[in-house]
């Protein structure tokens, strides 16, 4: 492996770890916010913001930038941490999450530096991303790429499949949809709430090229994102198999940690576990 590649892997790995620590701090400090789905997406966001996206943090509205839409908008604590770590705003904002007057709203809003679009109502972010890709690919032809991240519960929404059809009809070669397949949604295990498999075959049947990866393996995440970005013949989907609450033993695979804040004792234990994880 080249030294350059090695550096990328290391940077993404450390960032993912740092994102989790920041998220834990934020949600503990404000006693509100979504930890479970933030932890499952940490490697994906770290890879996007530290290697994949063509962006200029000092010029957040640069018109040729790649776009990212967090369709599972509730998991924005991790996105806010990723943006701060990438230099979009000072990290001191993080612990104002959800507070009165904060730039970091309960769900993403377009006016926050680095946020390309408002989201939080599930199912909407994906068609919005398709709209951006249509603009880039067919109308303005500025050829930026569009990335969007969806929850495996979120894809229950019929609207997601309408957008999947549209992306196929126009053979959008500049959109990459990542499904955070963490097996848990609000009310319990995803497959019990609404059986959604086979996710890969469904996207394939809708005309998408699909990659399946371990969403916590940084190398696989980066390889898949690069392959999907470079594919170009049509819409690309990455099904990332992940663990909700990843990194903290008592939070993993438990619907309770979808949207609950830890108490002091839980915070200390979670922090120790995250810090103990190999950087």
């Amino acid at each position, binding site marked *: 492996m080249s030294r350059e590649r090695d550096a990328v892997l290391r940077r993404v790995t450390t960032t993912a770890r740092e994102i989790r620590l920041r998220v834990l701090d934020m949600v503990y400090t404000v006693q*509100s916010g979504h930890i479970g789905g933030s932890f499952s997406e940490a490697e994906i966001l770290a890879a996007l913001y530290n290697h994949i996206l063509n962006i200029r943090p000092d010029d957040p509205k640069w018109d040729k930038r790649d776009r990212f839409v967090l369709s599972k908008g509730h998991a924005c604590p991790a996105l806010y941490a990723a943006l701060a770590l990438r230099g979009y705003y000072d990290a001191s904002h993080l612990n104002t999450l*959800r507070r009165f007057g904060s730039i970091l709203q309960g*769900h993403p809003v377009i006016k926050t530096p680095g946020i390309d679009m408002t989201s939080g109502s599930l199912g909407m972010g994906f068609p919005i991303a398709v709209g951006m890709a249509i603009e880039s690919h067919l109308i303005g032809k500025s050829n930026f790429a569009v990335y969007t991240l969806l929850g495996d*519960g979120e894809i229950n929404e019929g*609207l997601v499949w309408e957008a999947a059809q549209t992306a196929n009809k126009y053979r959008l070669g500049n959109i990459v949809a990542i499904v955070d397949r963490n097996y848990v949604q609000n009310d319990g295990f995803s497959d019990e*709430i609404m059986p959604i498999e086979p996710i890969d075959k469904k996207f394939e049947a809708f005309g998408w090229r699909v990659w399946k990866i371990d969403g916590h393996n940084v190398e696989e995440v980066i390889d898949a994102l690069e392959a999907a970005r470079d594919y170009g013949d049509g819409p690309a989907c990455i099904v990332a198999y992940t663990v909700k609450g990843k990194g903290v033993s008592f939070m993993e695979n438990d619907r309770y940690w979808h949207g609950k804040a830890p108490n002091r004792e839980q915070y200390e234990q979670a922090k120790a576990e995250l810090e103990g994880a190999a950087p």
Partner: protein
Amino acid sequence: MNGDAAQLRKAQNPTRRVFSEEMLAYGTEDPHFIVMEADIGYSTFSYLFGDAFPQRYFNVGIAELGMFATAAGIASTGRTVVCGSYGVFITMRAIEAIRSFICYPNLPVKILSSHGGITAAIDGVTHQATEDIANMATIPNMTVLAPCDSASAAAAFRLAMQTPGPVFTRLMRDPLYEVHSGAASFAVGGSVCVRSGADVTILSYGDIVIQAIRAAEQLAGERIEAEVIDLYSIKPLDRRAVIDSVRKTGACVVAENHQRRNGLGYEVASILLQEAPVPFAALGLDDTFAESGAYDLLLDKYGLSADHIAENARRVVHHKNR
């Protein structure tokens, strides 16, 4: 009752939970109705019913529009369906199914709508239902209820079940105050006068009733006697109570956790213009989106706290006396 707001107890549970507990109790009394949910059963508390009656509980995943259209199919056979979700998703994403396939055929679908108004405060605008009353009350055949405490929330469930056709009940995320005494009784088209007074009428519903009561107490210290009415039945509205009170006091303030436009204030204004024109103020979100933040801070910023209500009451009373 002219009670003291400081004496009013904070409710132990939010109205969303009270409503669902009543639904659970009713489950044994009426074995026929079913409940539908869209993956927030642990937030609407519909899971209580689901745990007790798994055969009568249908969680369709995160699919609000589909849920309401499916409910219409079930209800078309005559079966009563209770559907739960958050106010924004119900009254915006699913509104066409509700209008054309539940209200138009007048089907027995009872809607448990949580996180009304800006009570989803810290979640921000995508989760704040600030146009829900307007959207629902505008649809023919729909009954709209908005309880302000545990007694009225439990009553709302029963009223919904006993009323033919669709009923929308606006419930809240956070615990409110126990405004009503055991003696209060509730009816579709009813209201409760929670404080009587001769100088100004303050009309409200839901979480703002407590603010209205506190405003009335402030005003009492200035010898302005405010009458406070809880209009928990937003549609049909207790027109008689509104007109009688306003004819007596000669001034009116309406305050609601909702857009001013097309809310209760607009409805009352149109009644009063015909029946009893008086100095009038309507408080609510003034054609604006809110934001994330603590509930109390938002109420203050958007002009819905007791102080704002009192200030507007003073103004209309002054205007009347000129």
